[in-house]
């Protein structure tokens, strides 16, 4: 019988950081940070966009790490973490894509453009969904754990290659926020905006970690219930 703890001290600490951070984040974004001169209010979506996009890639990296760990030593817990991270990843990738589209509409006057980071994110979304399809295969969890981990690793290898390939393909448009690039000196953000962005990144990352732990706990509970149900069925049948 697996023992489940509903929420340990770590979850409580995360929760008590997360709730105030969320409100502070909203305050920073909508009231404290200055309104962008060219784009106006639409620019506020940028803070959510950067955060969700970052978590989308982070979550996939976590899938890769747990996939490698699962292959080294198959454990239910590692398998569950990889799956939950992928599920949250789909959510955040979708959010990053939709917020990006709204941003793109306001800033470049087009919903979609074939630009390296957009394509990479879109393909990331497809790989995530494919990964979830692999996990939905029927069979023992050990078998699915092996197959899905293998696919997870291949997918993680693929993402940087997609980015490189699309970057070579064409590179325009996306604002380079941190000073780099050929002639762009960076987007030249106000210090308040930069601070808000980093706080938003921090908050959304905490949200991801919190969701990951909660999701894993729920999944473990499901397993316990499944086992208990099977026990009862066996008892009745015998």
């Amino acid at each position, binding site marked *: 019988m697996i023992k489940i703890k509903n929420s340990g001290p770590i979850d409580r600490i995360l929760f008590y950081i997360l709730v105030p951070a969320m409100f502070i984040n909203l305050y920073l974004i909508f009231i404290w940070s200055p309104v962008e001169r060219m784009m106006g209010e639409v620019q506020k979506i940028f803070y959510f966009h950067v955060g969700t996009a970052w978590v989308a890639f982070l979550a996939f990296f976590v899938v890769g790490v747990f996939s490698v760990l699962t292959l080294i030593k198959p454990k239910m817990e590692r398998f569950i973490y990889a799956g939950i991270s992928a599920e949250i990843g789909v959510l955040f990738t979708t959010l990053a894509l939709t917020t990006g589209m709204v941003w793109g509409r306001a800033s470049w006057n087009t919903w979609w453009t074939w630009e390296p980071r957009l394509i990479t994110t879109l393909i990331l979304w497809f*790989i995530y969904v494919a990964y979830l399809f692999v996990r939905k295969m029927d069979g023992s969890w050990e078998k699915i754990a092996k197959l899905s981990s*293998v*696919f997870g690793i291949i997918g993680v290898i693929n993402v940087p*290659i*997609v980015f490189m*390939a699309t970057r070579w393909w064409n590179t325009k448009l996306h604002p380079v926020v941190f000073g780099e690039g050929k002639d762009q000196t960076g987007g030249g953000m106000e210090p308040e905006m930069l601070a808000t962005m980093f706080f938003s990144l921090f908050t959304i990352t905490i949200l991801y970690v919190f969701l990951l732990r909660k999701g894993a706990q729920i999944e473990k509970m499901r397993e316990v219930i499944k086992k208990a149900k099977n026990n009862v069925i066996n008892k009745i049948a015998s």
Partner: protein
Amino acid sequence: MMTVLSDALTIAGKDLRSEFKTKQTISMMAIFAALVILVFSFAFDPTNNAVKAVIPGLVWVITVFAGILGLNRSFTSEQENDCLTGLRSGPIDAASIYLGKVLANFTIVTIVQLISIPVLFVLFNYRFTGSLLWFVLIILAGTLGFIIVGTFLSALSANAKNSEMLLPVLLLPLLSPLMIAAVQATRIALENENIENAIAWLQLMSAYDLLFFAACLLLFEFIMEGS
């Protein structure tokens, strides 16, 4: 190392012999490729001169679509009479099963390309003026990468009940960088542009091929254990 290779050749030989006996997969793939060309000729008017621009893309669309048909069969055909269990329990390395399947699939898809690409050029009235050597090299590099990843995922998806549907969903996103490089390089080779631009894409394709070949060879063992 030598035994891995010779075992792989044995498995590839077995696959190819059983294929050439019936020729079912190859003819089916070639017909399907021709049908895809037909559908595209309705979509883009072949008499229009601007259609030349879509030829490099079409080469890869027919390769991938027809290839997926063949890849679907690659491992599911082994499930009849539990042949896969036989392969697994035999004294052969998992790597040589993978290598053998890659060789067999690569041969089959190359044969299909030998038929379908000339058909494409004829039906679209395309005059080939580029350098043939580079064109062949690019096609081979792209097809190899496609088969390397495709064979691996075909083994993976063969475990599912709906493997025919699962394979393209898994395969196409992973192929995207290869396809970008392959289409760009093919375009450069066909339009007889400066070939040095194509070399960069060819390098990207080779890097993709090598990286995924190494990864798939290492990870294939887990698929065989899992199924």
